[in-house]
Protein backbone atom coordinates (compact mmCIF):
# COMPACT_ATOMS: atom_id res chain seq x y z
CA UNK A 1 0.00 0.00 0.00
CA UNK A 2 1.31 3.43 -0.85
CA UNK A 3 1.36 5.38 2.36
CA UNK A 4 1.44 8.78 0.67
CA UNK A 5 -2.24 8.34 -0.02
CA UNK A 6 -3.42 9.00 3.55
CA UNK A 7 -5.89 11.82 3.48
CA UNK A 8 -7.43 12.45 6.89
CA UNK A 9 -10.20 14.79 8.02
CA UNK A 10 -10.79 15.48 11.68
CA UNK A 11 -14.25 16.80 12.53
CA UNK A 12 -14.54 18.88 15.70
CA UNK A 13 -17.09 21.28 17.14
CA UNK A 14 -15.32 24.30 18.49
CA UNK A 15 -12.05 24.26 20.35
CA UNK A 16 -12.82 21.88 23.16
CA UNK A 17 -10.29 19.99 25.29
CA UNK A 18 -11.46 16.77 23.68
CA UNK A 19 -10.91 18.03 20.16
CA UNK A 20 -7.51 19.49 21.00
CA UNK A 21 -6.52 16.18 22.53
CA UNK A 22 -7.77 14.27 19.53
CA UNK A 23 -5.75 16.48 17.21
CA UNK A 24 -2.63 16.15 19.34
CA UNK A 25 -3.00 12.36 19.47
CA UNK A 26 -3.59 12.15 15.76
CA UNK A 27 -0.62 14.35 14.93
CA UNK A 28 1.62 12.23 17.10
CA UNK A 29 0.47 8.94 15.58
CA UNK A 30 0.86 10.27 12.03
CA UNK A 31 4.33 11.65 12.72
CA UNK A 32 5.41 8.31 14.10
CA UNK A 33 3.88 6.04 11.51
CA UNK A 34 3.09 8.05 8.40
CA UNK A 35 5.74 10.75 8.36
CA UNK A 36 5.52 12.77 5.19
CA UNK A 37 2.80 10.63 3.74
CA UNK A 38 -0.36 12.12 5.14
CA UNK A 39 -2.47 15.24 5.24
CA UNK A 40 -4.82 16.30 8.02
CA UNK A 41 -7.69 18.69 7.48
CA UNK A 42 -9.56 19.93 10.55
CA UNK A 43 -13.23 20.83 10.02
CA UNK A 44 -14.93 22.85 12.72
CA UNK A 45 -18.66 22.10 12.47
CA UNK A 46 -19.56 25.12 14.55
CA UNK A 47 -18.22 27.23 11.70
CA UNK A 48 -19.43 24.95 8.91
CA UNK A 49 -22.41 22.93 10.13
CA UNK A 50 -23.41 21.98 6.61
CA UNK A 51 -20.24 19.91 6.24
CA UNK A 52 -21.53 17.39 8.80
CA UNK A 53 -23.90 15.85 6.30
CA UNK A 54 -21.40 14.77 3.68
CA UNK A 55 -19.53 12.38 5.94
CA UNK A 56 -22.60 11.70 8.13
CA UNK A 57 -21.00 13.06 11.28
CA UNK A 58 -22.91 12.53 14.51
CA UNK A 59 -20.22 11.91 17.11
CA UNK A 60 -17.48 14.42 17.89
CA UNK A 61 -14.59 14.13 17.43
CA UNK A 62 -14.70 11.97 14.32
CA UNK A 63 -11.67 11.15 12.24
CA UNK A 64 -12.46 10.22 8.66
CA UNK A 65 -9.92 8.47 6.47
CA UNK A 66 -10.91 9.71 3.02
CA UNK A 67 -8.02 8.00 1.28
CA UNK A 68 -7.10 5.29 0.75
CA UNK A 69 -10.56 3.90 0.02
CA UNK A 70 -12.78 2.62 1.58
CA UNK A 71 -13.73 5.43 3.93
CA UNK A 72 -13.01 4.67 7.58
CA UNK A 73 -14.31 6.48 10.62
CA UNK A 74 -12.84 6.59 14.08
CA UNK A 75 -14.70 8.40 16.82
CA UNK A 76 -13.37 9.54 20.17
CA UNK A 77 -10.30 11.36 21.42
CA UNK A 78 -7.95 8.89 19.65
CA UNK A 79 -6.21 8.16 22.96
CA UNK A 80 -5.78 4.46 22.19
CA UNK A 81 -2.98 4.50 19.63
CA UNK A 82 -3.29 0.85 18.75
CA UNK A 83 -6.98 1.14 17.97
CA UNK A 84 -6.32 4.14 15.79
CA UNK A 85 -3.61 2.31 13.90
CA UNK A 86 -5.90 -0.68 13.36
CA UNK A 87 -8.78 1.60 12.45
CA UNK A 88 -6.67 3.35 9.83
CA UNK A 89 -5.33 0.03 8.60
CA UNK A 90 -1.78 1.20 9.28
CA UNK A 91 -0.86 -1.88 11.24
CA UNK A 92 -2.26 -5.34 10.94
CA UNK A 93 -1.51 -5.42 7.24
CA UNK A 94 2.28 -5.63 7.63
Amino acid at each position, binding site marked *: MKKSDYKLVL*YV*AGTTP*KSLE*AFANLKKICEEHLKGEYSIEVVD*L*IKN*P*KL*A*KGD*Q*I*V*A*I*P*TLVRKLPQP*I*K*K*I*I*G*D*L*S*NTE*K*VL*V*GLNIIGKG
Partner: protein
Amino acid sequence: MAKSKKFTGSAVSELPKCPTGIQGLDEVTFGGLPKGRPTLICGGPGCGKTLLAMEFLCRGALEYNEPGVFIAFEEREKDLEENFASLGFDLKSLVRRKKLYIDYIYIERSEIEETGEYDLEGLFVRLDSAINSVGAKRVVLDTIEALFSGFSNESILRAELRRLFRWLKDKGVTAIITGEKGEALLTKHGLEEYVADCVIALDHRVNNQIATRRLKIIKYRGSRHGTNEFPFLIGENGISVFPMTSLLLTSNASSVRISSGIRSLDAMLGDKGYYRGSTILVSGSAGSGKTTFGAQFVDSACRNGERALYMAFEESEEQLVRNMKSVGINLKKWVDKGLLEIASNRATLCGLEMHLVMAHKSVKEFKPKVVVIDPITTLTGAGVEGEAKAMMARLLDFLKIEGITVLANDLSLIGDKGEATEIGISSLCDTWIRLTMETQGYRRTRRISILKSRGMKHAHETKDLLITDKGLEIKDIPGVREENT
Protein backbone atom coordinates in the same frame (compact mmCIF):
# COMPACT_ATOMS: atom_id res chain seq x y z
CA MET B 1 -33.06 18.59 38.54
CA ALA B 2 -34.92 18.83 35.32
CA LYS B 3 -37.96 17.44 37.06
CA SER B 4 -38.37 20.22 39.58
CA LYS B 5 -38.18 22.75 36.79
CA LYS B 6 -41.02 21.08 34.95
CA PHE B 7 -43.26 20.96 37.98
CA THR B 8 -43.28 24.67 38.62
CA GLY B 9 -44.34 25.21 35.03
CA SER B 10 -47.21 22.80 35.02
CA ALA B 11 -48.63 23.24 38.49
CA VAL B 12 -49.83 26.78 37.94
CA SER B 13 -52.22 26.35 35.04
CA GLU B 14 -52.85 24.15 32.05
CA LEU B 15 -49.84 24.01 29.79
CA PRO B 16 -49.82 25.86 26.51
CA LYS B 17 -50.65 23.51 23.64
CA CYS B 18 -49.37 23.13 20.14
CA PRO B 19 -52.19 22.06 17.79
CA THR B 20 -51.27 19.14 15.56
CA GLY B 21 -53.97 19.83 12.98
CA ILE B 22 -54.52 16.08 12.80
CA GLN B 23 -58.23 15.33 12.72
CA GLY B 24 -59.44 14.25 16.14
CA LEU B 25 -56.04 14.25 17.84
CA ASP B 26 -56.36 17.79 19.08
CA GLU B 27 -59.72 16.92 20.58
CA VAL B 28 -58.49 13.96 22.58
CA THR B 29 -55.50 15.94 23.83
CA PHE B 30 -57.65 19.01 24.53
CA GLY B 31 -55.70 21.24 22.21
CA GLY B 32 -52.63 19.44 20.97
CA LEU B 33 -49.18 18.44 22.15
CA PRO B 34 -47.34 20.23 24.96
CA LYS B 35 -45.90 23.36 23.39
CA GLY B 36 -42.15 23.69 23.50
CA ARG B 37 -41.68 20.20 24.89
CA PRO B 38 -40.93 16.76 23.53
CA THR B 39 -43.62 14.12 23.07
CA LEU B 40 -42.86 10.44 22.66
CA ILE B 41 -44.85 8.46 20.09
CA CYS B 42 -44.25 4.74 20.43
CA GLY B 43 -45.59 1.63 18.78
CA GLY B 44 -44.71 -1.45 16.77
CA PRO B 45 -43.55 -1.47 13.17
CA GLY B 46 -46.13 -0.16 10.71
CA CYS B 47 -48.31 1.42 13.37
CA GLY B 48 -48.16 4.89 11.83
CA LYS B 49 -45.53 6.64 13.98
CA THR B 50 -43.64 8.19 11.11
CA LEU B 51 -46.84 9.26 9.43
CA LEU B 52 -48.20 10.91 12.54
CA ALA B 53 -44.91 12.71 13.09
CA MET B 54 -44.66 13.91 9.51
CA GLU B 55 -48.28 14.98 9.39
CA PHE B 56 -47.65 17.01 12.53
CA LEU B 57 -44.90 18.89 10.66
CA CYS B 58 -46.83 19.30 7.40
CA ARG B 59 -49.96 20.60 9.07
CA GLY B 60 -47.84 22.80 11.30
CA ALA B 61 -46.20 24.33 8.25
CA LEU B 62 -49.37 24.67 6.20
CA GLU B 63 -52.01 25.49 8.78
CA TYR B 64 -50.17 27.15 11.64
CA ASN B 65 -47.24 28.70 9.82
CA GLU B 66 -44.79 26.80 12.00
CA PRO B 67 -41.92 25.40 9.94
CA GLY B 68 -40.52 22.04 10.92
CA VAL B 69 -37.43 19.86 10.90
CA PHE B 70 -37.58 16.15 10.28
CA ILE B 71 -34.51 14.18 11.31
CA ALA B 72 -34.81 10.75 9.71
CA PHE B 73 -32.67 7.93 10.98
CA GLU B 74 -34.39 5.27 8.95
CA GLU B 75 -35.52 6.63 5.63
CA ARG B 76 -33.79 8.75 3.06
CA GLU B 77 -35.22 12.12 2.08
CA LYS B 78 -36.19 10.73 -1.30
CA ASP B 79 -38.03 7.72 0.16
CA LEU B 80 -39.93 9.95 2.54
CA GLU B 81 -40.92 12.27 -0.29
CA GLU B 82 -42.20 9.35 -2.33
CA ASN B 83 -44.04 7.70 0.57
CA PHE B 84 -45.80 10.85 1.60
CA ALA B 85 -46.73 11.93 -1.90
CA SER B 86 -49.16 8.99 -1.91
CA LEU B 87 -50.85 10.46 1.15
CA GLY B 88 -51.25 13.85 -0.42
CA PHE B 89 -48.35 15.59 1.29
CA ASP B 90 -46.03 17.38 -1.06
CA LEU B 91 -42.85 17.35 0.98
CA LYS B 92 -40.76 18.53 -1.93
CA SER B 93 -42.70 21.73 -2.25
CA LEU B 94 -42.58 22.34 1.51
CA VAL B 95 -38.82 21.87 1.45
CA ARG B 96 -38.50 24.21 -1.51
CA ARG B 97 -40.55 26.86 0.26
CA LYS B 98 -38.38 26.51 3.38
CA LYS B 99 -41.29 25.28 5.45
CA LEU B 100 -39.67 21.95 6.07
CA TYR B 101 -36.13 20.67 6.38
CA ILE B 102 -35.42 16.96 6.17
CA ASP B 103 -32.08 15.58 7.24
CA TYR B 104 -31.27 11.91 6.86
CA ILE B 105 -28.76 10.74 9.44
CA TYR B 106 -27.11 7.49 8.62
CA ILE B 107 -25.00 5.60 11.11
CA GLU B 108 -23.27 2.41 10.07
CA ARG B 109 -21.60 0.77 12.98
CA SER B 110 -19.36 -1.43 10.92
CA GLU B 111 -17.67 1.66 9.46
CA ILE B 112 -16.97 3.18 12.84
CA GLU B 113 -14.17 2.44 15.26
CA GLU B 114 -14.48 3.88 18.77
CA THR B 115 -11.50 4.98 20.80
CA GLY B 116 -11.75 7.13 23.90
CA GLU B 117 -14.21 9.78 24.86
CA TYR B 118 -16.68 11.31 22.44
CA ASP B 119 -20.02 13.06 22.45
CA LEU B 120 -22.85 13.57 19.97
CA GLU B 121 -22.16 17.22 19.33
CA GLY B 122 -22.33 16.50 15.61
CA LEU B 123 -26.02 15.67 15.98
CA PHE B 124 -26.61 18.86 17.95
CA VAL B 125 -24.80 20.93 15.34
CA ARG B 126 -26.85 19.42 12.55
CA LEU B 127 -30.09 19.85 14.41
CA ASP B 128 -29.26 23.42 15.31
CA SER B 129 -28.35 24.30 11.76
CA ALA B 130 -31.51 22.63 10.47
CA ILE B 131 -33.70 24.51 12.95
CA ASN B 132 -32.07 27.80 12.05
CA SER B 133 -32.30 27.24 8.32
CA VAL B 134 -36.11 27.27 8.32
CA GLY B 135 -36.84 28.93 11.67
CA ALA B 136 -38.37 25.70 12.89
CA LYS B 137 -40.90 25.59 15.70
CA ARG B 138 -41.49 21.85 15.38
CA VAL B 139 -38.97 19.03 15.31
CA VAL B 140 -39.30 15.30 14.70
CA LEU B 141 -36.62 12.70 15.49
CA ASP B 142 -37.61 9.45 13.76
CA THR B 143 -36.41 7.31 15.41
CA ILE B 144 -33.63 8.34 17.71
CA GLU B 145 -33.23 4.74 18.83
CA ALA B 146 -31.14 4.13 15.75
CA LEU B 147 -28.34 5.70 17.77
CA PHE B 148 -28.32 2.65 20.03
CA SER B 149 -27.38 0.42 17.17
CA GLY B 150 -24.83 2.94 15.90
CA PHE B 151 -22.75 3.41 19.03
CA SER B 152 -21.58 0.92 21.60
CA ASN B 153 -20.96 3.18 24.58
CA GLU B 154 -24.39 3.24 26.14
CA SER B 155 -23.48 5.47 29.07
CA ILE B 156 -22.27 8.22 26.74
CA LEU B 157 -25.39 7.73 24.64
CA ARG B 158 -27.79 8.02 27.55
CA ALA B 159 -26.06 11.10 28.91
CA GLU B 160 -26.22 12.66 25.46
CA LEU B 161 -29.91 11.81 25.04
CA ARG B 162 -30.69 13.47 28.32
CA ARG B 163 -28.73 16.51 27.14
CA LEU B 164 -30.57 16.42 23.81
CA PHE B 165 -34.02 16.53 25.38
CA ARG B 166 -32.98 19.36 27.66
CA TRP B 167 -31.52 21.18 24.69
CA LEU B 168 -34.75 20.76 22.68
CA LYS B 169 -36.70 22.27 25.55
CA ASP B 170 -34.31 25.18 25.82
CA LYS B 171 -34.75 25.74 22.11
CA GLY B 172 -38.48 26.00 22.75
CA VAL B 173 -39.40 23.66 19.90
CA THR B 174 -42.33 21.28 20.11
CA ALA B 175 -40.78 17.92 19.35
CA ILE B 176 -41.98 14.44 18.51
CA ILE B 177 -39.63 11.58 19.25
CA THR B 178 -40.66 8.22 17.88
CA GLY B 179 -39.70 4.94 19.48
CA GLU B 180 -40.08 1.31 18.56
CA LYS B 181 -42.26 -0.69 20.93
CA GLY B 182 -40.26 -2.70 23.45
CA GLU B 183 -41.08 -5.90 25.26
CA ALA B 184 -40.99 -4.85 28.87
CA LEU B 185 -40.74 -1.10 28.38
CA LEU B 186 -42.81 1.16 26.18
CA THR B 187 -39.85 1.51 23.86
CA LYS B 188 -36.93 -0.79 23.18
CA HIS B 189 -34.41 1.44 24.86
CA GLY B 190 -36.59 3.05 27.47
CA LEU B 191 -36.88 6.46 25.83
CA GLU B 192 -39.88 7.19 28.01
CA GLU B 193 -37.37 7.84 30.78
CA TYR B 194 -36.29 11.04 29.05
CA VAL B 195 -39.63 12.26 27.77
CA ALA B 196 -41.66 13.03 30.81
CA ASP B 197 -44.34 15.28 29.44
CA CYS B 198 -46.41 13.39 26.96
CA VAL B 199 -46.38 9.80 25.78
CA ILE B 200 -48.71 8.46 23.07
CA ALA B 201 -48.84 4.79 22.05
CA LEU B 202 -50.07 3.59 18.66
CA ASP B 203 -51.23 0.09 18.04
CA HIS B 204 -52.29 -2.00 15.08
CA ARG B 205 -54.29 -5.02 16.15
CA VAL B 206 -56.17 -7.75 14.37
CA ASN B 207 -59.35 -9.06 15.94
CA ASN B 208 -61.50 -11.61 14.12
CA GLN B 209 -59.44 -10.99 10.98
CA ILE B 210 -60.32 -7.33 11.09
CA ALA B 211 -57.49 -4.91 11.67
CA THR B 212 -57.93 -1.81 13.74
CA ARG B 213 -55.52 0.97 14.54
CA ARG B 214 -55.74 2.51 17.94
CA LEU B 215 -54.17 5.45 19.71
CA LYS B 216 -53.82 5.84 23.45
CA ILE B 217 -52.45 8.71 25.47
CA ILE B 218 -50.37 7.06 28.14
CA LYS B 219 -49.50 10.22 29.93
CA TYR B 220 -49.80 13.92 29.53
CA ARG B 221 -48.33 15.84 32.39
CA GLY B 222 -50.18 18.96 33.40
CA SER B 223 -53.14 18.38 31.16
CA ARG B 224 -56.30 16.41 31.09
CA HIS B 225 -56.65 13.96 28.25
CA GLY B 226 -58.88 11.18 27.03
CA THR B 227 -57.86 7.90 28.60
CA ASN B 228 -59.60 5.55 26.18
CA GLU B 229 -58.06 3.84 23.25
CA PHE B 230 -59.13 5.89 20.27
CA PRO B 231 -59.53 4.17 16.93
CA PHE B 232 -57.81 5.91 14.05
CA LEU B 233 -57.68 5.61 10.34
CA ILE B 234 -54.95 6.23 7.80
CA GLY B 235 -56.82 7.66 4.86
CA GLU B 236 -55.94 9.56 1.73
CA ASN B 237 -55.52 12.76 3.76
CA GLY B 238 -53.45 11.29 6.53
CA ILE B 239 -54.54 10.29 9.99
CA SER B 240 -57.94 10.79 11.48
CA VAL B 241 -58.69 9.88 15.03
CA PHE B 242 -62.19 9.29 16.33
CA PRO B 243 -62.43 11.39 19.49
CA MET B 244 -64.56 9.32 21.80
CA THR B 245 -64.53 11.88 24.54
CA SER B 246 -68.05 12.94 23.71
CA LEU B 247 -69.90 10.49 25.91
CA LEU B 248 -71.26 13.28 28.05
CA LEU B 249 -74.80 14.36 27.40
CA THR B 250 -73.90 17.91 26.56
CA SER B 251 -75.75 18.33 23.30
CA ASN B 252 -78.18 21.18 22.99
CA ALA B 253 -81.80 20.21 22.71
CA SER B 254 -83.36 21.96 19.79
CA SER B 255 -87.04 22.71 19.69
CA VAL B 256 -86.97 23.24 15.94
CA ARG B 257 -88.82 20.55 14.02
CA ILE B 258 -87.84 18.81 10.83
CA SER B 259 -90.18 17.01 8.47
CA SER B 260 -89.88 13.25 8.18
CA GLY B 261 -90.53 13.65 4.47
CA ILE B 262 -93.84 11.86 4.84
CA ARG B 263 -96.67 14.27 5.48
CA SER B 264 -98.93 11.69 7.01
CA LEU B 265 -96.13 10.66 9.41
CA ASP B 266 -95.51 14.25 10.43
CA ALA B 267 -99.18 14.30 11.31
CA MET B 268 -98.63 11.39 13.67
CA LEU B 269 -95.74 13.29 15.28
CA GLY B 270 -97.73 16.18 16.65
CA ASP B 271 -98.27 17.53 13.13
CA LYS B 272 -94.69 18.79 12.87
CA GLY B 273 -92.26 15.93 12.43
CA TYR B 274 -89.07 15.07 14.31
CA TYR B 275 -87.02 17.38 16.50
CA ARG B 276 -83.96 18.67 14.75
CA GLY B 277 -80.85 17.03 16.14
CA SER B 278 -82.73 14.07 17.51
CA THR B 279 -82.06 10.41 16.87
CA ILE B 280 -84.74 8.35 15.19
CA LEU B 281 -84.71 4.60 15.17
CA VAL B 282 -86.74 2.74 12.59
CA SER B 283 -87.08 -0.94 13.40
CA GLY B 284 -88.59 -3.45 11.08
CA SER B 285 -88.20 -6.82 9.48
CA ALA B 286 -86.85 -7.37 6.00
CA GLY B 287 -88.92 -5.67 3.30
CA SER B 288 -90.93 -3.55 5.66
CA GLY B 289 -89.91 -0.32 3.96
CA LYS B 290 -87.06 0.96 6.12
CA THR B 291 -84.81 2.00 3.28
CA THR B 292 -87.65 3.88 1.61
CA PHE B 293 -88.20 5.58 4.93
CA GLY B 294 -84.61 6.73 5.05
CA ALA B 295 -84.54 7.77 1.41
CA GLN B 296 -87.67 9.85 1.78
CA PHE B 297 -86.16 11.58 4.76
CA VAL B 298 -82.97 12.58 2.93
CA ASP B 299 -85.06 13.58 -0.10
CA SER B 300 -87.04 15.95 2.05
CA ALA B 301 -83.91 17.41 3.65
CA CYS B 302 -82.29 17.99 0.26
CA ARG B 303 -85.47 19.61 -1.01
CA ASN B 304 -84.97 22.16 1.77
CA GLY B 305 -81.41 22.72 0.60
CA GLU B 306 -79.79 20.78 3.42
CA ARG B 307 -76.89 18.41 3.06
CA ALA B 308 -77.57 14.77 3.78
CA LEU B 309 -75.32 11.78 4.24
CA TYR B 310 -76.70 8.33 3.52
CA MET B 311 -74.57 5.54 4.94
CA ALA B 312 -75.59 2.42 3.08
CA PHE B 313 -74.21 -0.83 4.41
CA GLU B 314 -76.23 -3.20 2.28
CA GLU B 315 -76.65 -1.54 -1.08
CA SER B 316 -74.33 0.22 -3.46
CA GLU B 317 -75.06 3.78 -4.48
CA GLU B 318 -76.39 2.69 -7.87
CA GLN B 319 -78.61 0.04 -6.37
CA LEU B 320 -80.07 2.46 -3.88
CA VAL B 321 -80.68 5.12 -6.53
CA ARG B 322 -82.38 2.59 -8.83
CA ASN B 323 -84.54 1.06 -6.12
CA MET B 324 -85.72 4.38 -4.80
CA LYS B 325 -86.52 5.60 -8.29
CA SER B 326 -89.11 2.84 -8.48
CA VAL B 327 -91.02 4.45 -5.63
CA GLY B 328 -90.71 7.93 -7.09
CA ILE B 329 -87.74 9.19 -5.06
CA ASN B 330 -85.04 10.71 -7.24
CA LEU B 331 -81.84 10.58 -5.21
CA LYS B 332 -79.57 11.03 -8.23
CA LYS B 333 -80.67 14.62 -8.57
CA TRP B 334 -79.44 15.46 -5.07
CA VAL B 335 -76.18 13.58 -5.55
CA ASP B 336 -75.53 15.60 -8.70
CA LYS B 337 -76.32 18.82 -6.89
CA GLY B 338 -73.82 17.92 -4.19
CA LEU B 339 -76.45 17.91 -1.47
CA LEU B 340 -76.47 14.17 -0.95
CA GLU B 341 -73.55 11.88 -0.32
CA ILE B 342 -74.12 8.16 -0.41
CA ALA B 343 -71.36 6.35 1.44
CA SER B 344 -71.71 2.69 0.76
CA ASN B 345 -69.43 0.21 2.44
CA ARG B 346 -69.90 -3.42 3.22
CA ALA B 347 -70.18 -3.71 6.97
CA THR B 348 -67.61 -6.47 7.08
CA LEU B 349 -65.13 -4.46 5.02
CA CYS B 350 -63.40 -3.30 8.15
CA GLY B 351 -63.77 -3.18 11.90
CA LEU B 352 -66.52 -1.39 13.69
CA GLU B 353 -64.14 1.25 14.86
CA MET B 354 -63.02 1.93 11.34
CA HIS B 355 -66.64 2.47 10.34
CA LEU B 356 -66.85 4.87 13.20
CA VAL B 357 -63.76 6.74 12.09
CA MET B 358 -64.97 6.80 8.50
CA ALA B 359 -68.34 8.12 9.57
CA HIS B 360 -66.63 10.74 11.69
CA LYS B 361 -64.44 11.75 8.79
CA SER B 362 -67.28 12.08 6.27
CA VAL B 363 -69.35 14.07 8.72
CA LYS B 364 -66.46 16.43 9.45
CA GLU B 365 -65.74 16.91 5.78
CA PHE B 366 -69.20 16.89 4.22
CA LYS B 367 -70.96 18.64 7.12
CA PRO B 368 -74.40 17.12 6.66
CA LYS B 369 -77.47 18.23 8.60
CA VAL B 370 -79.10 14.86 8.26
CA VAL B 371 -77.58 11.38 8.42
CA VAL B 372 -79.21 8.06 7.61
CA ILE B 373 -77.55 4.85 8.76
CA ASP B 374 -79.01 1.94 6.86
CA PRO B 375 -78.98 -0.33 8.71
CA ILE B 376 -77.21 0.24 11.98
CA THR B 377 -77.58 -3.40 12.96
CA THR B 378 -75.36 -4.86 10.26
CA LEU B 379 -72.47 -3.16 11.91
CA THR B 380 -72.68 -5.62 14.75
CA GLY B 381 -71.40 -8.20 12.31
CA ALA B 382 -68.20 -6.23 11.96
CA GLY B 383 -67.14 -6.32 15.55
CA VAL B 384 -67.12 -8.27 18.74
CA GLU B 385 -70.69 -8.38 20.02
CA GLY B 386 -70.05 -6.65 23.33
CA GLU B 387 -68.24 -3.74 21.71
CA ALA B 388 -71.04 -3.10 19.27
CA LYS B 389 -73.34 -1.28 21.62
CA ALA B 390 -70.64 0.99 22.94
CA MET B 391 -69.64 1.84 19.40
CA MET B 392 -73.19 2.58 18.32
CA ALA B 393 -73.58 4.79 21.34
CA ARG B 394 -70.44 6.67 20.44
CA LEU B 395 -71.50 7.15 16.87
CA LEU B 396 -74.97 8.37 17.80
CA ASP B 397 -73.60 10.62 20.51
CA PHE B 398 -71.07 12.14 18.20
CA LEU B 399 -73.76 12.91 15.61
CA LYS B 400 -76.00 14.34 18.27
CA ILE B 401 -73.32 16.68 19.52
CA GLU B 402 -72.79 17.87 15.97
CA GLY B 403 -76.49 18.75 15.98
CA ILE B 404 -77.26 16.28 13.22
CA THR B 405 -80.64 14.61 12.88
CA VAL B 406 -80.02 10.89 12.56
CA LEU B 407 -82.29 8.23 11.22
CA ALA B 408 -80.99 4.76 11.94
CA ASN B 409 -82.59 1.70 10.47
CA ASP B 410 -82.66 -1.42 12.55
CA LEU B 411 -83.32 -4.75 10.99
CA SER B 412 -85.00 -6.69 13.72
CA LEU B 413 -85.59 -10.27 12.85
CA ILE B 414 -87.55 -10.90 15.99
CA GLY B 415 -90.56 -9.11 14.59
CA ASP B 416 -93.14 -8.31 17.22
CA LYS B 417 -90.85 -8.90 20.13
CA GLY B 418 -88.65 -6.20 18.69
CA GLU B 419 -89.06 -3.87 21.61
CA ALA B 420 -85.81 -5.18 23.01
CA THR B 421 -83.79 -4.15 20.01
CA GLU B 422 -80.88 -6.43 19.45
CA ILE B 423 -78.12 -4.23 20.59
CA GLY B 424 -80.25 -2.19 22.89
CA ILE B 425 -79.69 1.12 21.23
CA SER B 426 -83.30 2.11 21.60
CA SER B 427 -82.57 3.92 24.82
CA LEU B 428 -80.27 6.22 22.87
CA CYS B 429 -83.06 7.15 20.50
CA ASP B 430 -85.50 9.98 20.88
CA THR B 431 -88.09 8.67 18.47
CA TRP B 432 -88.66 5.01 17.82
CA ILE B 433 -90.79 3.87 14.95
CA ARG B 434 -91.65 0.27 14.29
CA LEU B 435 -92.58 -1.17 10.94
CA THR B 436 -94.17 -4.59 10.83
CA MET B 437 -95.56 -6.95 8.27
CA GLU B 438 -98.82 -8.49 9.16
CA THR B 439 -100.43 -11.41 7.44
CA GLN B 440 -104.15 -11.23 6.95
CA GLY B 441 -105.39 -14.21 5.08
CA TYR B 442 -103.07 -14.54 2.13
CA ARG B 443 -102.14 -10.87 2.07
CA ARG B 444 -99.26 -9.21 3.85
CA THR B 445 -99.72 -5.61 4.94
CA ARG B 446 -97.17 -3.13 6.22
CA ARG B 447 -97.98 -1.48 9.50
CA ILE B 448 -96.39 1.44 11.29
CA SER B 449 -96.48 2.45 14.91
CA ILE B 450 -94.64 4.98 17.01
CA LEU B 451 -93.27 3.27 20.09
CA LYS B 452 -91.94 6.44 21.61
CA SER B 453 -91.14 10.01 20.76
CA ARG B 454 -89.57 12.02 23.51
CA GLY B 455 -90.92 15.44 24.24
CA MET B 456 -93.85 15.54 21.86
CA LYS B 457 -97.42 14.49 21.50
CA HIS B 458 -97.65 11.60 19.11
CA ALA B 459 -100.15 9.11 17.79
CA HIS B 460 -100.40 5.81 19.60
CA GLU B 461 -102.32 3.68 17.16
CA THR B 462 -100.91 1.39 14.54
CA LYS B 463 -101.58 2.44 10.99
CA ASP B 464 -101.22 1.04 7.51
CA LEU B 465 -98.06 1.90 5.63
CA LEU B 466 -98.36 1.93 1.88
CA ILE B 467 -95.51 2.09 -0.57
CA THR B 468 -96.82 3.99 -3.56
CA ASP B 469 -95.06 5.23 -6.66
CA LYS B 470 -94.81 8.59 -4.91
CA GLY B 471 -93.13 7.25 -1.81
CA LEU B 472 -94.62 6.21 1.49
CA GLU B 473 -98.08 6.95 2.65
CA ILE B 474 -99.75 6.25 5.96
CA LYS B 475 -103.43 5.53 6.26
CA ASP B 476 -105.74 4.53 9.06
CA ILE B 477 -106.35 0.83 9.16
CA PRO B 478 -109.79 0.43 7.60
CA GLY B 479 -112.37 -0.13 10.29
CA VAL B 480 -110.15 0.99 13.18
CA ARG B 481 -111.35 4.16 14.85
CA GLU B 482 -109.10 6.88 16.15
CA GLU B 483 -109.08 6.55 19.94
CA ASN B 484 -106.22 8.42 21.39
CA THR B 485 -104.23 11.30 20.02
